[in-house]
């Protein structure tokens, strides 16, 4: 019982708390997973948009360059004979107009011989071996974007070598040639430098041969302080790629720039991208944990609210079970629990009522029995006494007969006592005395009797007809066979706060078996007696006063028998 009590009160909240904790932890994990996926996706998308924007800007710039080179081709080269003064004039004019971005222009014939070049242009001897030349010659319909070249070392400027196949006019005929345009990289650099160029977020540009066209850390790379590790990853991936390097996650997004075959790569440190989401992470974790704690707390609270009334009810029931019929449960708790208490109380009320009724019935039954016993005074005693009186009258012992009649009258008066159950010791003694007197007369003074009573005690009450059976016993067992020297003594005295009534005789005594027989069997000593046995008296006394009181009989053979009634001092007794 005790174990079970502990287990349900402990295990249930523990299991609940564990479940809640598991749920919250799952929530946190799921949330983390989905959020980091979401943030990653978001970051990829965001970077993708930035990349697209950069690529678009670059493509627009490329288109501008295309327009420029086509303009030079179609408006000048294709229009004017290369030997004419107009041609050179127009070309110089063009360079002048585009001074900001044009470094130089040069026209070669298809065999690599220089036809014309602008003033700033450093003539290249082996032009037909150069990549830009070969490329343009091979792809006559497209504009070739070649490598990046350092010019004006003192100013540290770079140019793109942009070339295309052209048809120029010489001597009235069209001839094939290659136009080379050296275009400052500034316009392209400017677009790319708009991107945050930090170590954790930057972009760079590669040409189709994987040569670096733009890199924010150009100088570091040149001096060997920095190495771009993402090139292979960027070129091998389709849309984006997440790569681990230097203990960090890098988001690499590459895109090929139209027309040129260039590749622009945007590199971002995943950590710094997702950093912003961390705060949100912590916030949500905190909220979830808080919810968890609150849930566990509420759970425990509800559980206690739920079980406490039950346990109180249980304790009440235990108390009730142990006999405290006044124990009632507090009517508390939630909903049905309250009903349980209420119904228990109703049940307890009913039970108590029934118990009371049963007890009342029992007492009534005992009363009936007592009344019955009292009324059982053997008529033989009356007949015998009346016989004795008749006999005395016939033998003209009128005095004796008169005394006998008055004694008998006293005996019966006290016997009936207006139906009262308890009478004073004085009355009881009177009754006993009258009985003894009657018997003494009947037995012709076969015995003597003495009454020695503490007058102080006579006012106390005792159950009616309690001494007479002892006397009867003493007469029939003690005086049997005795002749004229029998003695019966009644002593009433106080001992240990209780009243003791001794009835002693000097008869032959009884063996223990007989005493036991008398004490435990409903026998009467004589058919002619009052009909109430010693055992009856004992039971009655115990019924009224409890087990501590009653009759004890001690006997010694040839010495006599002493029967002692012990009753408490009781002034009055409720007549029930």
């Amino acid at each position, binding site marked *: 019982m005790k174990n079970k009590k502990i287990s349900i009160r402990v295990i249930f909240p523990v299991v609940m708390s564990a479940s809640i904790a598991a749920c919250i932890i799952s929530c946190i994990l799921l949330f983390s997973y989905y959020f980091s996926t979401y943030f990653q996706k978001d970051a990829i998308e965001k970077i993708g948009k930035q990349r697209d924007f950069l690529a678009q800007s670059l493509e627009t710039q490329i*288109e501008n360059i295309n327009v420029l080179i086509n303009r030079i081709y179609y408006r000048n080269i294709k229009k004017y004979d290369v030997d004419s003064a107009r041609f050179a004039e127009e070309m110089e004019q063009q360079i002048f107009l585009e001074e900001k971005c044009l470094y130089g222009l040069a026209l070669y014939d298809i065999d690599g011989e220089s036809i014309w070049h602008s003033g700033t242009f450093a003539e290249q001897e082996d032009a037909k071996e150069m990549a830009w030349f070969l490329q343009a010659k091979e792809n006559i319909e497209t504009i070739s974007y070649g490598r990046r070249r350092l010019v004006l070392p003192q100013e540290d400027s770079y140019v793109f070598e942009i070339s295309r196949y052209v048809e120029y006019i010489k001597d009235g*005929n*069209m001839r094939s040639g290659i136009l080379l345009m050296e275009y400052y990289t500034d316009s392209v650099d400017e677009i790319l430098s708009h991107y945050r160029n930090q170590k954790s977020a930057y972009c760079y540009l590669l040409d189709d041969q994987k040569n670096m066209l733009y890199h924010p850390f150009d100088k570091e790379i040149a001096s060997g302080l920095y190495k771009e590790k993402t090139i292979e990853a960027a070129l091998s991936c389709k849309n984006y790629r997440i790569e681990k390097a230097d203990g960090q996650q890098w988001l690499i997004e590459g895109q*090929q720039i139209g*027309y040129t075959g260039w590749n622009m790569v945007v590199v971002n440190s995943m950590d710094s991208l997702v950093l912003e989401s961390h705060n949100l992470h912590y916030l949500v974790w905190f909220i979830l944990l808080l919810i968890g704690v609150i849930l566990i707390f509420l759970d425990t609270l509800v559980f206690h609210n739920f079980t406490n009334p039950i346990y109180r009810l249980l304790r009440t029931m235990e108390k009730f079970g142990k006999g405290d019929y006044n124990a009632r449960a507090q009517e508390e708790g939630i909903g049905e629990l309250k009903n349980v208490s209420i119904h228990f109380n109703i049940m307890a009320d009913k039970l108590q009522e029934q118990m009371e009724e049963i007890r009342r019935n029992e007492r009534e039954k005992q009363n009936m029995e007592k009344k019955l016993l009292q009324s059982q005074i053997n008529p033989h005693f009356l007949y015998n006494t009346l016989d004795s009186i008749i006999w005395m009258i016939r033998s003209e012992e009128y005095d004796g007969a008169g005394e006998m009649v008055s004694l008998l009258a006293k005996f019966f008066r006290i016997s009936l006592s207006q139906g009262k159950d308890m009478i004073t010791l004085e009355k009881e003694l009177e009754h006993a005395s009258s009985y003894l007197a009657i018997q003494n007369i009947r037995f012709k003074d076969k015995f003597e009797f003495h009454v020695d009573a503490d007058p102080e005690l006579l006012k106390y009450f005792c159950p009616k007809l309690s001494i007479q059976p002892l006397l009867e016993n003493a007469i029939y067992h003690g005086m049997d066979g005795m002749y004229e020297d029998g003695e019966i003594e009644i002593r009433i005295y106080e001992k240990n706060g209780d009243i003791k009534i001794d009835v002693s005789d000097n008869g032959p005594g009884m063996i223990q078996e007989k005493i036991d027989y008398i004490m435990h069997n409903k026998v009467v000593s004589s058919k002619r007696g009052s009909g109430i046995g010693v055992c009856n008296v004992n039971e009655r006394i115990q019924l009224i006063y409890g087990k501590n009181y009653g009759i004890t009989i001690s006997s010694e053979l040839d010495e006599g028998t002493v029967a002692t009634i012990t009753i408490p001092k009781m002034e009055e007794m409720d007549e029930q």
Partner: protein
Amino acid sequence: MKWKTEKYNFILAGLFVLMAGLIVAWKLPKREDCYIHMGIAVYDLNDTFMEKYIRTLQDMIEKTEIAGRKISYEIYNADGKNKKQEKQLQYMYAQEYDIMLVNLVEPASAASVLNEAEEKEIPVILYNREVAEKDLQIVKDVWYVGTDGKAAGEIQGKLLKELWDKQKQSVDRNQNGKLDYILIEGEESHYDTIRRTNGFLESGRELPLKQLGNLTADWKREIALEKFAKLDEETIRNTEAVVCNNDDMALGVYDYYKKHQMKLPVIIGINNSQEMNQKIRLGEIYGTVDNNMEDQAARIYEIMKSVLNGVIDKYDKIWYSMPYEIVNSDISEEK
């Protein structure tokens, strides 16, 4: 109490059935579309060549069924305007076509078009107007079908040489021993323009060519007529041959001569359009080059069928049809 429990059971059962139904409805395959959807973007249907091209394609597509599904197609005509085509392309991506045939107005913008199409997972067949090969490498599901412009130009040079060799006397009207010609080109920086001109120049190297003028007429008959009319009379009078990048422009020159009722010079075009062909049969125009447009359409059709059947790596990314010459041999013999 019992009634209540039954009610709850009933509600629960109802919910269960509802959920099961939803799941089934969601999982059930959507009704198969009985059409394959295709978008066709054309740079300009006023171009007689493109018009014929598309008509040929239409005939082929309408006859086709792939896996029991007919092809429904829409044609978007950009009228030669890049802005208009950009809008049309945006609309086309949104239609989620199964395949797109695109004839770009601005071939330089191919990269962004291809990137977007790939994002939407739409295979693209580019045709007629070629794009940079580098751009074709950006995405996987893209093909180009065109014609060999250089070969066409070379045929022009060859035709001219044949004529020069055979009838030098009648061709060299001013008897200066040179072939005085005017070159009329298509759109500037158009691949075909550059290639055809280049081919012609290379094969014409052996001829004693003397270029009197070089015009750009955007492939159009009216512009060719207009620009040709602006040349000074001296030049026109000395013109012995007019070499054009396409038939429409050649017909523009023809229009000029007819208008001024002058003796036609040797005119050479490319495309073999119906009218051109007719004029050649009549002996008025010397010759043209057939771009074998039927072959191109057939190729497009084959790639399209293969792609729609899920086979994507059967065909090369770039394919050119082989052009061939169209001349009236009688006339060339006669002259």
